[in-house]
Every structure is written in structure tokens, then in C-alpha cells.
């Protein structure tokens, strides 16, 4: 190549000017679909249909709907440009505690798209979907075996929906005995969905205190249990990333009071294949297929939250029930005694296929290894950071490492600042300020699908940041992120003056050239 006269080495400049258009290299400043001007355009070629709506009379829509269209190339560009503004598991470690952001195997996606699963209707004759019902039955078998529980309701659509299902079954079981109860006990460290669900089901929520070592306070639990307590809702391993050592005693106390033990199974990944919830005295537990069983989080769903149930609660499971016959399987869509129906149809079939694909891939041996590696990875992170950051509790953790913010005292840097600086270093922040019982909480869940190299890269980044915070490099944190697609966003403004949809007035502002400002 002719290089005379051309600079062959990039030269560093001190000042990085803003670009003239707002774009930054590969990162495009992408307009909204409503600002591309395609009000008459469509990206779908459909046959011409003679619209004869004479039978519909005045029901016919005549207004301008307000939906722009994009040609296929424009649509691809739009969404691919947007995609480049997202962090994702496939880009780097995503240590969002309590969310189990593990690798999403692509085999699962391929299986879920087989026409025999993806292109079947929930209400076509059951004789034509025997494979689908068999798949549900097989998934149920795996979930029951892994938890040691005798029954499972597959249909709940996410974890919180599973909680609703479990509490509905508990309420129905109490009512069937003519023993309506009023209260549900929830530890202070619980996920917000627990109290929200209990309140939704009509119970008064009361908090159980926590001990200094991050577990349920048995004395407080015993004091608050009584004949009007319907259930306790305890997460185990709990949201501090710790196993409830006294869980068997918790179950005994609960049962002695005539209440049920609802276990929030969000953290099942830590114990799958090693501990069966049935052996802990659990009566009901939801399992997030999008956590432990690798179905993709998809930017916030869809999930699936099957609920395993004890013998006492199984008769109240919601529709549908899988029934075994000599010549096949059927779904009873209106079973007698059920606590009702969680949703139309049969639940999240697409997620069932993915979860079973994952289970079959791992097998009994692989799933046990999943729990061990998840716990090992979390303890490794904890060990590597404990000299610089302050672990919230002593002793081994389960699948997530929890730190408080006392190590930031006097630095002027908060948990939020630290998290935002992690973004600049290429990592998604950990869960912050949760659980509420730990000051400035930083909850790190690496999952088992991180390599030793990635864990080391992550730990090294956090160590550098921690040292920078302690050395007074406050600006690095206060202004962060500097290198993300956007700087820190004004959430107060968004809430004070909610703008929840685009309006034509927004277009002119968006298209104003940046250089002219």
C-alpha cells in the first residue's frame, strides 16, 4: 500500500470533540420509528383484498391510526442500531443478584421453534397435541424429582404469578377447612413481589425480623405465628445469598401453627441437584424457568413460574391438570377443586420446551454441577474482593456474594456511583440497594456459566475501581458513566413530568441538528 504522505499511526489528541451529528462511531443516534416519516409505508407485501365491510356498518374504523411503517431494510437498521445500546449476557458478565443471568443455550431456541411446538394452537383437539402434553408431563416430572415435591402447577407465567398461584392454593386449602386466616409473614429481606402478592390475595403482611447473621429470626417468627397466620413466605437460599440454616425448624414452627411454608424459589439455582425443597418442609415453591432453567430474560420476560406443591396443597392446583389415561394424556381444563385458572390456555409452552431442552442437556449430573459451580463462582468473587470491599456477612455464601457500602465510608462515593462506574468498565452493575436490610447493598450473582478468565477480569475491574474510590478519584464515579451510549439519566424529571408516548411535537426537537444548538 502506498503510504507516502499518509499518516500510518493514529496520533493521540487531548480534546475529543463532540461529533456534529450526535452519532459516535458505531453508535448511531437513532430516531424513533415515528420520526422516520413512513406514515404511508409498509414493509409487508400483502395481496390486494377487496374491502367489503358493508356488513360491519358503522363499526368500521375511519380515523388515522397513527402507526408508521418501515421497509424491511429500514426496520433491520432501526432495531440493530437499538440493540447496540444494550448490555447483554452474551457481551459480558451480568451479575444482577437475584436474577440468575446465566447463558441462554441456543439449542433451546431451536427446539422451541419446531413447528410441532411453535405452530400448535392451545385449543386444537387434544388428540392432535399428545406430544405437547407429554412434554408438559415430562417437564413436570423433572421439576417434581428435582424438588422432591409430589405435584406441580405449570401454568403461572412468571415468578410473581407463581407466588400468586401458591398463595391462592394456600388460601383455598385453609378455606376448604373452614379456617380462613388473615396474616402472611414475610422476612424483611424478601423480594418486593412477596408482600405485594400476599396483599393482592387479601392478606395482611407482617415482617419477620432478621438475625445479625442474615437469617430469619426464629424467636420473632415464633412470636408472630398464630392461629390467624395463613403462610410464611421465605426465600431460600435467601436474598442475602445465604442458606437458612434453621429452615427445617422454620417449617416445623410454621406447620405447628397450622400455616403453610411458601418458599420463594428464585434462588433455586444454588441448590438444584443438591438439596430438595421437600426435604426442608416446603409446601409450595415457584421455580423461575427463566432463572434456574436458562430460558432467556428477553429484556424483561417472558418468564415462567411453575409452582411445586405438597400433598396438602395439590388438590387446589389451578387448571389445567394433566391426566394420564391408558391410551394417552389429556388436559383437564376445568378440574373440580382447583383454585381457579391463572390465565387463558395452558401457560408458557414456549418456555417449557426451552427449560426441558436445558434439563435434558445437563441431566442429573450436570444440574448438580450447575449448583456447585454457581456457588463456587460466587464464593470466589467474595474471596477475591473481601480485602477491599466489605462482605455483609461472614461465612460461605451460596450463589451470590453480598457486600454492604461501609467500605465506601468517607470516600464520597455511593453504591450508585460505584455501579455506574462499573458500566464504564464494561460490566453490568450488580443488584443495588437490595436486599433492603443491608446498607447500600451490592448483590453479585455471577452464575455458573462464567469462565475463570471472565471472573478474574470482573474481579480485577472491581478491585481497580475500589482502589480508585479509596484513593479519592471521586470524579470517576460521580459523573459515571462516561462511555455508555448515554450519561446518567434524569429519572426525577421522567417521573415529575411523565411522557409515556411519542407525539408529533417531539419530532422537530429530535431532528434539530446538534451543531446548531
Amino acid at each position, binding site marked *: 500500500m502506498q503510504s507516502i504522505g499518509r499518516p500510518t499511526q493514529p496520533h493521540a489528541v487531548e480534546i475529543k470533540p463532540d461529533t456534529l451529528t450526535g452519532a459516535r462511531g458505531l453508535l448511531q443516534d*437513532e430516531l*424513533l420509528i415515528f420520526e422516520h416519516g413512513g*406514515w404511508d409505508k409498509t414493509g409487508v407485501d400483502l395481496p390486494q*383484498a377487496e374491502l367489503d365491510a358493508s356488513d360491519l356498518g358503522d363499526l368500521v374504523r375511519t380515523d388515522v391510526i*397513527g402507526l408508521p411503517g418501515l421497509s424491511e431494510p429500514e426496520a433491520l437498521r432501526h432495531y440493530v442500531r437499538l440493540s447496540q445500546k444494550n448490555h447483554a449476557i452474551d457481551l459480558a458478565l451480568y451479575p444482577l443478584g437475584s436474577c440468575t443471568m446465566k447463558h441462554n443455550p441456543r439449542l433451546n431456541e431451536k427446539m422451541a421453534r419446531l413447528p410441532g411446538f411453535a405452530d400448535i394452537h392451545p385449543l386444537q383437539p387434544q388428540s392432535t397435541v399428545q406430544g405437547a402434553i407429554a412434554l408438559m408431563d415430562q417437564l413436570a416430572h423433572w421439576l417434581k424429582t428435582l424438588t422432591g415435591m409430589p405435584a406441580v402447577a405449570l401454568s403461572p407465567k412468571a415468578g410473581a404469578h407463581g407466588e400468586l398461584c401458591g398463595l391462592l392454593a394456600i388460601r383455598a386449602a385453609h378455606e376448604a377447612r373452614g379456617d380462613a386466616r388473615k396474616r402472611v409473614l414475610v422476612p424483611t429481606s424478601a423480594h418486593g413481589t412477596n408482600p405485594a402478592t400476599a396483599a393482592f390475595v387479601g392478606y395482611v403482611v407482617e415482617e419477620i425480623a432478621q438475625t445479625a447473621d442474615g437469617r430469619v429470626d426464629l424467636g420473632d417468627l415464633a412470636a408472630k405465628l398464630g392461629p390467624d397466620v395463613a403462610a410464611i413466605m421465605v426465600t431460600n437460599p435467601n436474598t442475602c445469598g445465604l442458606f437458612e440454616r434453621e429452615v427445617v425448624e422454620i417449617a416445623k414452627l410454621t406447620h405447628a401453627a397450622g400455616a403453610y411454608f411458601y418458599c420463594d424459589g428464585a434462588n433455586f439455582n444454588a441448590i438444584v441437584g443438591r438439596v430438595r425443597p421437600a426435604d426442608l418442609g416446603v409446601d409450595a415453591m415457584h421455580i423461575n424457568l427463566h432463572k434456574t432453567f436458562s430460558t432467556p*430474560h428477553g429484556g424483561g420476560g417472558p418468564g415462567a413460574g411453575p409452582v411445586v406443591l405438597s400433598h396438602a396443597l395439590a388438590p387446589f392446583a389451578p387448571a389445567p391438570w394433566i391426566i394420564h389415561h391408558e391410551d394417552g394424556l389429556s388436559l383437564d381444563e376445568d378440574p373440580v377443586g382447583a383454585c381457579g385458572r391463572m390465565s387463558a390456555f395452558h401457560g408458557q409452552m414456549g418456555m417449557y420446551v426451552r427449560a426441558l431442552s436445558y434439563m435434558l442437556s445437563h441431566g442429573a449430573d450436570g444440574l448438580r454441577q450447575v449448583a456447585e*459451580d454457581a456457588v463456587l463462582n460466587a464464593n470466589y468473587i467474595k474471596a477475591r474482593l473481601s480485602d477491599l470491599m466489605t462482605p455483609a456477612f461472614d461465612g460461605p455464601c451460596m450463589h451470590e456474594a453480598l457486600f454492604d457500602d461501609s467500605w465506601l465510608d468517607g470516600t464520597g462515593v455511593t453504591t450508585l456511583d460505584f455501579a455506574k462506574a462499573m458500566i464504564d468498565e464494561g460490566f453490568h452493575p450488580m443488584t443495588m440497594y437490595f436486599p433492603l436490610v443491608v446498607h447500600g447493598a451490592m448483590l453479585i450473582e455471577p452464575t455458573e456459566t462464567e469462565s475463570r478468565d471472565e471472573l478474574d477480569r470482573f474481579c480485577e475491574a472491581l478491585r481497580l475501581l475500589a482502589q480508585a474510590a479509596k484513593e479519592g478519584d471521586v470524579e470517576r464515579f460521580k459523573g459515571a458513566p462516561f462511555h455508555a451510549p448515554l450519561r446518567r*439519566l434524569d429519572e426525577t424529571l421522567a417521573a415529575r413530568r411523565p411522557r409515556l408516548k411519542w407525539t408529533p411535537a*417531539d419530532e422537530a426537537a429530535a431532528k434539530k441538528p446538534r451543531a446548531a444548538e
Partner: protein
Amino acid sequence: MRYLPLTPADRQDMLAVIGAGSVDDLFVDVPASARRTGLVDLPLHAGELEVERELGALAARNRAAGQGPFFCGAGAYRHHVPASVDHIIQRSEFLTSYTPYQPEIAQGTLQYLYEFQTQVAALTGMEVANASMYDGSTGAAEAVMMATRVTRRKKAVLSGGLHPHYSSTIRTSTHVAGVDLIEQPAALDAEADVIGAIDADTACVVVQTPNVFGEATDVTKIAEAAQAAGALLIVVVTETVSLGLLKSPGSMGADIVVCEGQSIGNGLNFGGPYVGLFATREKYVRQMPGRLCGETVDADGRRGFVLTLSTREQHIRRDKATSNICTNSGLCALAFTIHMSLLGQTGLRQLAAINHAKARKLAQALGKAPGVEILTKRYFNEFAVRLPAPAAAVVETLVARGVIAGVPYSRLAPKAGMYDVLLVAATETVTSADIETFASELNGVLA
């Protein structure tokens, strides 16, 4: 194991860093009685090929809709989804991200949610929409709960044309909250009957259009009657494509609109995952369930998007939240918004017109069969027919003749007694040959 990166040597090194002798030391807090030393009684790990074989065999035992003439609807519709939709939703940055808790590195998700909310508002004719619910039926239950908060009343009237699974879902989650449900008997075209049930304690009436029998209704008078009594009108739409042809619920005075959005961008999937659309009036926004995405600016004044008004939600408000929902239907909402962006209003209207034309053609063909009566008067792409024999038996017989004929109403409501009513739908995926085959096989069965 292909999804586990750690090697045995890694594990040993890491245990040494931790200061643990073995991985068992990390599980020391588990009570001895619950520590399992052996493997659970399930098969061992398997390679991709083996898993594909096993699941492929199960899939092969199902009759996919695309294998022949297919006419099921009743809340789930088979539409053609452009290839680019599935390609885009499988991009890692969409598929393997989570709820946009860190907006600086989730603008992709947040912007499409903002676009989704705008599209849903336009489609339903409402002022605001949220970032999705699990599906239409759970959205309907949330709408009833929201109406009780807005009106501080506890009574809800459900129309007899509401999909029975929706009624059942609403009943399941609202009776524990002390909601007094007035469920009207199943009826083909009796939406206006809800007016007579409205009183001073009514929080809302729930009306579906087109209803479960396919009948489309102008709900303007119902809205007026409800609002005159201080109640809200909740309109349920289970076939969202219909909004390309039929008046929007907002234009007829709805206060809350709940749709099943599956028809746009999402496959049948045996009933899930689907996506619930939820829209309402601006003045009720603080009583809405679910996530909301809002526009704001960043520290440099650039436009950006965040989750907002989260003081309504469970992670902040706990037992005082408007709903317990957390994970919703993000990726299905993405599929919806991509498909809708490809269609645009031009394509949506065209698609709706084709669906309507197919259904009319189907009605003409079926109406000629002996003893068959078309029951629905004003329909979109689905209608009810009365057969001279039990519908479930006819459907089963037609399976053997290669036709999936539709949904017997008795399957949805076994106790309603309408054993001879069959619900049939025709979308753009149905061909003229499909319709001819259905009609001739039905003739054969009924002759």
C-alpha cells in the same frame, strides 16, 4: 458439559483462593438431613443431537397448524409473521438482556418499549399504555383490580360474551380481593345487557369486542351508561388485528383497554408466551399495573428513556403496590412492535381487510352445509356456527379427515350447554383451497 466453562483445575484453584477444602464446605449451612450426596433419579447429560432427537420426537407427535386446513381462534390466532421479526428478537442484545434497570446500557430495550407504548396507545385509541402484561387474560384481571382502586368500589360486571378463560382468570384473582363479580350468562350478542346490571356500587363493566362468538359491538352506549354511574368501561380485544378494521375502543369511550397482542409478531406456541396490551386514560396512569417507560434526558441533555412512575410497583411499594407483576413479556412485546413497525397503518388495514374477506368467504362456504347456521351477525375474522350435531364430535371426526375445524364453545365453557356451537376463524394464512376442503369435509360428515 458444554454450558459450564470451569475445568476441574479451575475448580481446585478457586477452592484454594477461597480457602475451602472441597465444594461441600461451601454447602455447610445446609442441614445434614437435607444434603443429598448422590444424583437425583433423572437421566444423565446429553449432547445436542440426542436432545434434538428426543424433543423432535415429541414435536412430531403434534399436528402443526401449517400441516393442513386450520380454523382455530378463540383468543389465539395464526398469522404470518415476517422472517425479520424472529431474526431481530434473537439478537443477543435483546434476547439475553433483562429488565432495563440500568438505563444507560439498556436504551435499546427502553426505546422499543417507548415505541411499543406509543403504538399500543394509537391502536387502541387511548392516551397511555404500559410496557406489557403477561397476556390478555391476566391483563383483564389487572384491569378489574385497577378499576376497584380508581372507583373505590368492589363490584365488577362481566359480559356474557367475554372469553370464558378470561372470566375464569378474572374470577380466580379478584375473588380473594373481595371483588363482587356479576357474571352474565353466555350470550351471542348481548353486550348491552351489562347496562342493566350497573348500579352505584359498580367499579367496572367488562365487555369484549369482537366477543368470544366473534360478534363486534359498538360499546359507546355501554361506556356512557357506565360512566354516568361512576363506573369504568373495560374493553377486551382478543384479536388485535381487528383494530385495523374496527373502531378503536378509545373512540367508543373505553376507560381501560386490554388486548391479547399475540396476533402481531407472535406464534401460537400452544397458548404462551403471549403479550398483554394495557391502555387507559392519562388521569388513571398512577393506578396502572406494570412497567412504564418514559422519556427524559441524560446529563448531557440527550434524549433518553427510563422506567418511570415505579413508586406504583412492588419493588418499591411492596404490599401497597398496584400489582405484584415484575417480569412481563418484554421479548413478545419486541416481536409485536417490530411486526407492527413493518406493517404500519397501511399494512395493518390491509391485513385486517384480508382477514375479514377470508372469514366472509368461509361463512359463505360453511353456510351451505346441511343444517349449519351462521350465528354471528357482524364479525371480523371469526364467527360462531350452529351445527346439527355436537361440535366436539364433529371436530374430532374432521381431524381424521385432515381438517382442524375450530374450537367447540363447550370446550371453553362445559357447563354453558352450547354443545352445538363451533367457533371458526379464518386469517390470511387460510387459502381458498383450505376453505373448500373444510366445507366439503363438513358436508361429508353432516350428510
